[in-house]
């Protein structure tokens, strides 16, 4: 079969491999670049302030050396890796950072980054642990404070009009991403998981309008083409925290799987809920980035039904199994793991849990386990 993938835009992959290049260019032109991580920080506010939101990522596989002089080794290696990039000066092009109170480790990153590598602008966005009317109000006030601080740093007023425009631009991107995801409901899917991951990672490092063009270009290049993926590949959902590197997706796809859906940050978790700005854009942000946003750090309920959304997603995308990617020393995801496994298995969805330290260095062993899992899925029906 001819690989339509070859005809698809190569731009996302190139942008993903060298993802800070565009931001550096813009910084050199005098644009302010604001780094952020996690799904609680609305890039819309940064865009509305006339600055460029830049998703902070690590360099997967890079051994931790410098970071360990500041951070304990028994902490999430993804976060340590991001910090190492900062210490090495690779984030010197950022004018500022916004770090939320996501998990413990991300929270710690704020203080350490600000202490050892103080940027011109640093803002901590606090995030409540439970969802209630009071916590939604608290988060909204946090967003108001973020807005004010961005205004004073950027020297601009974020009017409702500006914010609505930013929201509609980001929403439009969300809509296009959803369209691309939708194309993977079909079998074979129109683009691979690897392509999708690279596109999203690339998009998280460029201005929203440029991402918009990139998405359009991707949609145009796919056109009405049928999927490029081998029909026999087992359709899987990838679950995890952050997926800022396509390495694991490639590994799964090389092993006979097709990652047609994910529940990760940068992936669906950040694109799943398109907010309607309505009359109150701050309310829309509050809903999108907190009330409806599913990060396991926020304790919603103790019912195992809290994972029902995953089962629904899996059904919609006709997924045969779920692969979970768990970072060593990650509390929020690892506490969920056994209950999640039970729930998925009860729903007839086999679950494979992979543990890693953000290196994929045990990829040989991982590959074997993935392959065995995929074979089992293929034989399932």
């Amino acid at each position, binding site marked *: 079969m001819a690989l339509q993938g070859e005809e698809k835009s190569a731009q996302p992959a190139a942008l993903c491999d060298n993802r800070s290049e565009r931001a550096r260019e813009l910084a050199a032109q005098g644009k302010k670049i604001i780094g952020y991580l996690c799904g609680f920080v609305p890039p819309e506010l940064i865009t509305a302030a006339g600055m460029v939101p830049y998703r902070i990522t690590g360099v997967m596989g890079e051994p931790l050396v410098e970071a360990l002089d500041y951070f304990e080794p028994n902490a999430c290696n993804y976060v340590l890796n991001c910090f190492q990039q900062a210490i090495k000066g690779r984030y010197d092009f950022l004018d500022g950072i916004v770090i939320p109170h996501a998990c413990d480790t991300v929270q710690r990153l704020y203080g350490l980054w600000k202490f050892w590598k103080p940027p011109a602008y640093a803002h901590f966005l606090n995030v409540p642990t439970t969802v209630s009317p009071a916590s939604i109000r608290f988060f909204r006030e946090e967003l108001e404070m973020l807005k004010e601080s961005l205004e004073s740093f950027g020297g601009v007023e974020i009017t409702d009009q500006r914010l609505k425009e930013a929201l509609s631009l980001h929403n439009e991107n969300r809509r296009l991403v959803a369209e691309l995801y939708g194309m993977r409901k079909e079998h074979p899917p129109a683009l691979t998981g690897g392509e999708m991951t690279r596109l999203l990672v690339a998009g998280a490092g460029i201005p929203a309008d440029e991402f918009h063009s990139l998405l359009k270009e991707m949609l145009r290049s796919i056109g009405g083409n049928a999927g490029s993926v081998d029909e026999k590949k087992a359709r899987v959902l990838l679950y995890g925290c952050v997926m800022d590197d396509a390495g694991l997706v490639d590994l799964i796809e090389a092993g006979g799987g097709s990652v047609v859906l994910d529940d990760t940050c940068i992936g669906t978790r950040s694109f799943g809920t398109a907010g309607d700005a309505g009359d109150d854009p701050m309310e829309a942000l509050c809903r999108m980035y907190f009330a409806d946003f599913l990060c396991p750090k926020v304790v919603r309920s103790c019912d195992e039904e809290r994972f029902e959304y995953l089962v629904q997603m899996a059904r919609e995308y006709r997924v045969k199994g779920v692969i979970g990617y768990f970072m060593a020393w990650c*509390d929020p995801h690892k506490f969920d793991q*056994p209950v999640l496994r039970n729930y998925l298995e009860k729903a007839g969805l086999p679950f494979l849990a992979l*543990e890693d330290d953000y290196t994929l260095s045990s990829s040989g062993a991982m590959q074997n386990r993935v392959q065995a899992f995929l074979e089992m899925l293929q034989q399932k029906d």
Partner: protein
Amino acid sequence: MSEEKSEFRKAVRSTETARSVNQILMDWYSKSLLASKEGRPVAWCMVGAPPEILKVFDLDSSWPENYGTACAARQMAVHYMQLAEGEGYSPDLCSYERNAIGYCREYLDIGGIPPDAPQGGMPWPAMLITNSTVCDPRSKGFQAFNAHYLHVPMYTMDIQMPHYGADMQDPKLKAHYLRYNIDQIWGLIRFLEEQTGTKLNEAALSEAVANSLAAQRLMWEVHELRKAVPSPMPSEDQFSCIVPMLYMAGSREAVDFFQKLHDEVRNRVENRIGVIPEEKYRILWVGIPPWFNMGIFNYLESLGAVSAMETTYYVHAPVADVDLSRPVEAIAEIGWRKASQVHTLGAELSTEGLFSPGLVLKFVREYAIDGVIFHRVLSCRAISFGQAHTARRLREELPVPVLFLESDMADPRTWSDSRIKGSISAFLDIVDTGAGKRA
């Protein structure tokens, strides 16, 4: 590593008051077991849930963190943790939580309290009360074992504080936080009213908060007395004394306990009664202790080193002039003021300010410390976090020998006597070269 029997299992405390904690704890467990037997509800709580409020509702409680320490000390924790690991809970996860998870598993398997459970066991809870201070496992762990085994009503009290660099004097910021924290405390009260069918007695809560402040003041004064040379009270004693502080705050008994401790320590200072006859080195202990091998402190003492002070469970300077007639607001205000103290010292590590590098620097100076031991507990990131950062700051600002001991608070599988002894010996050699300077 160690299935070998460690030589450090037993610890001897220096003060009579700390030695009395064993009995207090036994009585505490008996009381909640009795409550459960008589059909009264028992809550499982994580530290951070205000004991003052539980007390006012006359609610008996068990604390999985404390139970983790009890199981560790009685060498039962590995058994429970292995059960939890068998259920898919990673060995990375907080060993207190894993201990409680394994306990739940066994309880369900045998249909009741395991006969060999330390302290007679924790009675099955009617409700869970947790909170978000300090760490994720506190809320995530309870969520997990409630979803997996318990299926009882749960309340998570979410107390938030600003992070490093915040202006704690900013009234707008304070109003933002206090409004939320007060709501969360009221949320707990409403939850308890519903669960127990009784209304809050505000006057009784005011009294409990007053007791709590009185106990904290005494505890803080004990901390101050411990600046004396030779050290009148070592860390292993303080670690026992957290029991009345963390679980019994608000009660008259806790005030009496700390008064007794205060009198005893003052007497020791006045009469120059030290922990050991010849104190050669004064150590600052940073981190949770290894509850399964508390004898490590006696081992240090046998080498002339006394752990004179510790950062964990530190009670900050007492707050005064809080309006106790509105006790819920008072609890929130006290929390804010304590956090402000930490921000003044430097709270670059976390919002809770539980762990401040500034505090380590302050203690090194004020307690005439010759060396700092950082206990890096593998399964608790929250309290280990920041040790590397703090060590770096020490190196740059206040050179003092530093040792990292890696093990755990409740998981003895992380421990090896020979490794720990080797590190301590090398460390004390370095300390020795600088110790003379103190005098």
